[in-house]
């Protein structure tokens, strides 16, 4: 068979980028574009953070000594404690539920598989104020208990560290659950079966094979949780827990000392570096390459009798506590506030704010997913350290508290304005006053890690030879991404989109500082009402955030998280 002649026709035409010079064929290397994008993104992310962090060069000694003498030591202990406790809690709950739902069959298991993601739509600060309201002394729970027993019935302290850990765990476990679930789904049955035939009982096999193989995903989930805990300053305050981030908001809102706030923020950055280092360590040097899409997933085991109902009960309890009860409480508040006044559905501002929220969240999610794919692919296309270094730089924003990012962006905008003024060009005012562009920029800085990590984790599971094969078949880097990476990491991209969109929808400090004049979002509105204790009026917008966030969560995860039927 003469295959050779027909080849010439199908071979892609020689790229025009190549030129002949001095006997050498100099070819424009497509990777430079990727390296350049990775570098540009890394610089764009680091710039605002660095601008703010550089203020540490001029430390306000007074503030430091004062802080160290009074609150700082306790703050540090609290921060570390809260982070560790929440990580342990979320990994236990998240990985446990993922295993339960992924490995066993029991009544309602298919539904719970995605219902368990719902708390992702519930901002931690909403969960916090709902539970303070419910469990507080005047709240319905204690009031009922007092009715049953006597006025001095014992009840755990609501505003306390343990309760903060519980609420943070309930609000954040879906991050671990999602990633653990994906890791389990993509694991091939063969390794698990290998462990079983090597004499391991099911749980031991899970512990010795499935768990270590899911370790990168668990580490990624734990890192997300740690970062969220680190930068939260709204939720913990409901429980009188003073972390470093709370300290930042204190010196910021109280002492109006941007330097001190920034310096405290650099402390948070230190923690963040520790978290990232931990994640790398936990991920280890091992490469976990298993061809997930084709592999047969681990067979599910049907549970019977009380075990089945215990499993159902456990899932139902988690869904109830993290979602059903808070939603019911918000509904109750909404019905109290009724249809009048601020926060009611008839309020003309309502739809506008809703639209703004959706717009910002969507734009941020798409930007983060696109950049996440580009950077994650760039590290695969040119396996040099530079690109990977840029990728790491590009993801530091998630460890930086929102206000720091926002102030950084604002400072940059002011600098850009100065440049524009110097050049005699108009438009500076708009820059400084805040544009949705600046807001989305800040969101990308802040949430790129979220998008990148989920995409990178998916990509990590592809054998490196797939990329090599595509390249040697003549696919340019861009085509490799489009034709090989994207189709195979679709679930990772989906996760990235949803995580970023939901986070952006719930996000508060950045939008408070950077939104353009008159540009309000639901989160801002909820915050304004909540900061004035107008819970009833905050009910509807809070409920709306939850409802809007629930939609993509359900649409996406319902499809991807329902147990995959064993192929063949």
């Amino acid at each position, binding site marked *: 068979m003469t295959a050779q002649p027909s080849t010439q026709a199908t071979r892609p035409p020689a790229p025009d980028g190549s030129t002949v010079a001095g006997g050498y064929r100099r070819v424009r290397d497509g990777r430079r574009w990727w390296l350049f994008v990775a570098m540009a993104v890394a610089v764009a992310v680091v710039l605002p953070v660095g601008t703010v962090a550089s203020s540490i060069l001029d430390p306000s000694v007074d503030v430091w000594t*004062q*802080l160290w*003498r*009074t609150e700082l030591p306790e703050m540090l202990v609290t921060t570390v404690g809260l982070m560790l406790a929440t990580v342990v809690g979320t990994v236990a709950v998240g990985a446990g539920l993922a295993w339960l739902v992924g490995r066993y069959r029991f009544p309602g298991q298919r539904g719970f598989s995605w219902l368990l993601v719902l708390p992702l739509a519930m901002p931690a600060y909403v969960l916090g104020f709902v539970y303070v309201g419910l469990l*507080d*002394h*005047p709240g319905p729970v*204690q*009031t009922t208990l007092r009715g049953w027993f006597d*006025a001095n019935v014992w009840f755990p302290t609501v*505003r306390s560290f343990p309760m903060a850990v519980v609420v943070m765990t309930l609000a954040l476990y879906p991050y671990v659950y999602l990633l653990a679930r994906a890791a389990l789904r993509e694991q091939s049955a063969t390794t698990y079966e290998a462990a079983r035939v090597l004499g391991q009982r099911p749980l031991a096999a899970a512990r010795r094979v499935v768990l270590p193989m899911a370790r990168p995903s668990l580490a990624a989930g734990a890192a997300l949780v740690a970062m969220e805990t680190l930068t939260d300053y709204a939720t913990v*305050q*409901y429980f*009188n827990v*003073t972390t470093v981030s709370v300290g930042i*908001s*204190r010196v*910021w*809102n*109280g002492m*109006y*000392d*941007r330097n001190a706030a920034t310096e405290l923020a650099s402390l948070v950055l230190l923690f963040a570096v520790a978290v990232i280092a931990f994640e790398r360590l936990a991920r280890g040097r091992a490469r976990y390459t298993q061809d997930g899409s084709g592999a047969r997933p681990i067979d599910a085991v049907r549970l019977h009798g009380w075990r089945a109902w215990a499993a159902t009960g456990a899932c139902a309890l988690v869904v109830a506590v993290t979602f059903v009860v808070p939603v019911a409480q918000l509904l109750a508040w909404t019905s109290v506030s009724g249809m009048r*006044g*601020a926060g009611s559905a008839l309020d003309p501002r309502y739809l506008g704010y809703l639209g703004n929220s959706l*717009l910002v969240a*969507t*734009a941020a999610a*798409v*930007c983060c997913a*696109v950049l996440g794919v580009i950077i994650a692919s760039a590290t695969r296309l040119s396996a040099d350290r530079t690109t990977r270094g840029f990728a790491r730089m590009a993801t530091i924003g998630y460890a930086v508290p929102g*206000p720091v990012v926002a*102030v950084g962006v*604002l400072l940059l*905008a*002011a600098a850009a*304005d100065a440049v524009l003024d110097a050049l005699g060009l108009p438009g*500076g*005012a*708009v820059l*400084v*006053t*805040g*544009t*949705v562009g*600046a807001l*989305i920029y800040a969101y990308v800085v802040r949430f790129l890690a979220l998008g990148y990590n989920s995409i990178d984790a998916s990509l990590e599971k592809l054998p490196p030879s797939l990329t090599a094969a595509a390249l040697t078949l003549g696919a340019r880097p*861009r085509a490799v991404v*489009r*034709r090989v990476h994207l189709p195979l990491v679709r679930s990772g991209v989906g996760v990235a989109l949803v995580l970023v969109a939901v986070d952006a929808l719930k996000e508060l400090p950045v939008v*408070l*500082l950077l*939104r*353009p*004049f*008159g*540009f309000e979002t639901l989160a801002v509105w909820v915050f*304004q009402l909540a900061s*004035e*204790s107008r819970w009833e009026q905050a009910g509807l917008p809070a409920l709306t955030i939850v409802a809007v966030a629930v939609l993509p969560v359900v649409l996406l995860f319902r499809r991807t998280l329902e147990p995959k039927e064993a192929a063949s």
Partner: protein
Amino acid sequence: MRTRFASLSAVTFAVALAVSGCGAAFGGDDDVVRVYSARHYDLEPAFEQFYEETGIEVEFLYGSDAELRERIKAEGEDTLADVYMTVDAGNLALAAEDGMFQPMHSKVLDEAIPSNLRHPDGLWYGLSKRARTIVYDPDAVDPSALSTYEALAKPEWDGRLCLRRSTNVYTQSLVASLIVHHGEQRALEIVSGWADNAEIFNNDIEILENIDSGNCDVGITNHYYLARMLDDDADLDVKIFWPNQQGRGVHINTSGAGVTKNADNPELAQQLIEWLATDGQQAFVAGNHEYPANPDVEPDDLIAGFGDFKADDLDAEKFGALNAEAIQLMAEAGYE
């Protein structure tokens, strides 16, 4: 497919650009006053009434104090803000100190607002008064046992006192006023006593609810939170007490406004503030049960029912400047 990939990113940027364009469009109009407000209570009815009476439109942006000030500073000459409005004397004082305001030379305002509720050079004017006072559970506390803020530091109130978090500007201003009256040493003793006795809450509503439910016996809150709750539930088991009537009087705080230095429409801005201090006073305070700053305007019936009281006429400017010290003092005293 390639085009789809490219167009996706293109659309994203287009959307971002279009929307930033929308943001910019706010800069165009002339008959508009733009207010940066850290006061979250329903301002819309007052602004709507102003528009009906004058034809001048009001646009406003909510934010926290520090954020809005940072923003006005960062915006510099390009700022869109004509008016900076906020809820605490401390914030107004800081803004004045930072040179964010321009003086208003207004006879109307000088006549309408008492001198202790305004900046000596007319940089800002107070528009309403809030009393930060003592509230108690009538089932657990005999009002005769109550006297002053300072007395709540005594050990007899151990486990009975409920206070608001130190991050709150109202708490800070109250402590700042203690520093002004007693000096740092004595103020530290008082605040330490409070911290030992108190359970700390996130906001005044929580304190009032916990008094109502019997968890707390006594607390310190702004008067209008009680008024607001009484609006919803007249049978609320909480009573108000005016402290320090034998001495300096109840701690009063101000919400007020000033015209920004780089305002595009300083005349309109001043007109708005003048209106809020006079014809608009009722509309401005009524929605939130505040006491009018203008003595010619009567408070609403509900808060009038709280009775008359002697107010601490300490210069808002004075204790407003002490917020940072107040925070440090509370940190030292172990007040969360």
